[in-house]
């Protein structure tokens, strides 16, 4: 150990390298397999030969002579064979080259199975006619003619050569993207899966129900869902909160909120209603904002009561003036969160 703070910082970095270079079970297994291929069978023989009694020198000389003769005879035979093979081989090679070049020019991709894990950014030559540029993680499976990419996160740019009959699909938790001959990108993040098409036509099926057929210049986003309505609504609430926190336009937050509301129950519904009221008012739909606020406030247990009362009051003032906001302002006052000046002004107007 060391007391020098410079050493401690350095030791932390060395510790990180130590963790990342520790041997894994897969690596050990791979090296064992490699070793088993390299160890010659004769190893067993050598180990056994050490335990045999010493050989008589004359006998050994006879055996060596016989072995040498056999080796020489075999060598002569092989020389003759090589000579013949060389001539025939040259002819065969030329013929094969002509056939191979012709086949390559017209061949469709061989339908070989694919199995590749994508963990690092960069281009990937997954199969003939398919060009991928990854900046994320996923797995490439399927076959060369029908690649199937399970994409877990980040961006994937895809180009599929048209006219080669390649049916490529990209699957994320939110979307299934199927394409024949086009250029598009798939970007998966906590906000969902966004598909944008540069060339050709792409069909996107969202797990949350919506389907899109996109052409060049189009884009669509499939929002997160984990299947059950409750889980889907919680995912959409999360998405809406994330969008709001990241400063996204209110209309975009509202889209996520309104997608989740029909599915939501219990606390998720309550939270979504609160956000709905806020966002509706933000986009100028104040009457609807007040309705949403009223639905939220109908439940006395809401944890964002003061917030929603303030939105309702602002929405009421915007649509019907101060008197309409009185009941919200009074409720706020009771909660100790009121604005006395505004309350007084509205009372005067009544």
């Amino acid at each position, binding site marked *: 150990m*060391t007391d020098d*703070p*410079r*050493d401690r*910082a*350095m*030791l*932390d*970095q*060395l*510790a*990180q*390298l*130590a*963790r*990342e*270079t*520790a*041997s894994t079970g897969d*690596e*050990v297994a*791979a*090296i*064992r397999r*490699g*070793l088993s291929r*390299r*160890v010659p069978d004769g*190893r*067993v023989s050598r*180990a*056994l030969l*050490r*335990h045999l009694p010493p050989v008589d020198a004359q006998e050994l000389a006879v055996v060596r002579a016989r072995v040498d003769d056999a080796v020489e005879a075999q060598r002569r035979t092989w020389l003759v064979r090589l000579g013949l093979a060389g001539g025939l081989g040259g002819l065969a090679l030329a013929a094969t080259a002509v056939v191979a070049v012709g086949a390559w020019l017209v061949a469709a991709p061989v339908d070989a199975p694919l199995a590749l*894990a994508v*963990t*690092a950014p960069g281009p990937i030559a997954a199969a003939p006619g398919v060009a991928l540029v990854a900046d994320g993680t996923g797995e490439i499976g399927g076959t060369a003619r029908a690649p199937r990419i399970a994409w877990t996160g980040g961006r994937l740019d895809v180009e599929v050569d048209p006219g080669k009959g390649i049916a490529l699909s990209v699957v994320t938790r939110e979307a299934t993207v199927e394409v024949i001959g086009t250029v598009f990108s798939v970007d998966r993040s906590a906000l969902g899966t966004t598909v944008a098409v540069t060339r050709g036509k792409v069909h996107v099926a969202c797990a949350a129900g919506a389907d899109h057929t996109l052409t060049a210049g189009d884009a669509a986003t499939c929002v997160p869902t984990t299947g059950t309505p409750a889980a889907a609504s919680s995912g959409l609430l999360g998405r809406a909160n994330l969008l709001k926190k990241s400063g996204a336009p209110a209309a975009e937050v509202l889209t996520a909120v309104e997608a989740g509301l029909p599915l939501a129950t219990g606390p998720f519904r309550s939270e979504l209603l609160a956000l709905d009221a806020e966002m509706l008012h933000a986009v100028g739909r104040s009457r609807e904002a007040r309705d949403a606020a009223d639905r939220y406030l109908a439940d006395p247990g809401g944890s964002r009561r003061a917030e929603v009362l303030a939105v309702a009051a602002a929405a009421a003032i915007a649509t019907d003036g101060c008197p309409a906001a009185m009941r919200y302002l009074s409720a706020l006052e009771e909660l100790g969160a009121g604005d006395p000046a505004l309350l007084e002004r509205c009372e005067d107007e009544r």
Partner: protein
Amino acid sequence: MARPQPSGDQLAAVRAGDEDALADLVDAWLPVVLAWCKRLGGPTVDAHDATQDILMLVMDKVDRVYSPEQFRPWLFGVTRRVLARHRRGAWVKRWVGDLFGRDTPDEANDPLRQAELSDTARRVHRALDRLPDAHREVLVLCDLEHRTDEEVAALLAVPVGTVKSRLRRDRAAFRSTATRMGLGPAVAAIEGGA
């Protein structure tokens, strides 16, 4: 980290030609040798290849080792020599190309594995690689593998005092190299404030 310990009986069995004993010995030391190859070989050396080469040599020549105390420094010496050969080979390949390329793809050469290190680990790896072999060995054995001074002294066949003084020197050398490579703003900040 649990460290394998060859026993006198095991070595005797190996010398006696017991294939099972030999396989057990190789299995026990494979992870250790692989970790040495990754950490001491540097980014230019294929650690899997080097590990296989080392273990092939071990299998071929271990019958020269008669005691457990002798085994570990012998193994480390073999590792050091094989890694030096691989590093020279990697240098040649960089300029001349791979004249004896493999016919079949080897999972050890999977480029995705090279990219699995985080950015920090990769830079630390490069900084270590720039140190001379003797500096790098003590640093790796002491500060990455947390071996005691006595263990390291036994591996390197040097006195314990030599290990301590080399470690102080090697840490300073690594810090200097790492700072020049722009590693560890924390390290640079401490240096500046010290």
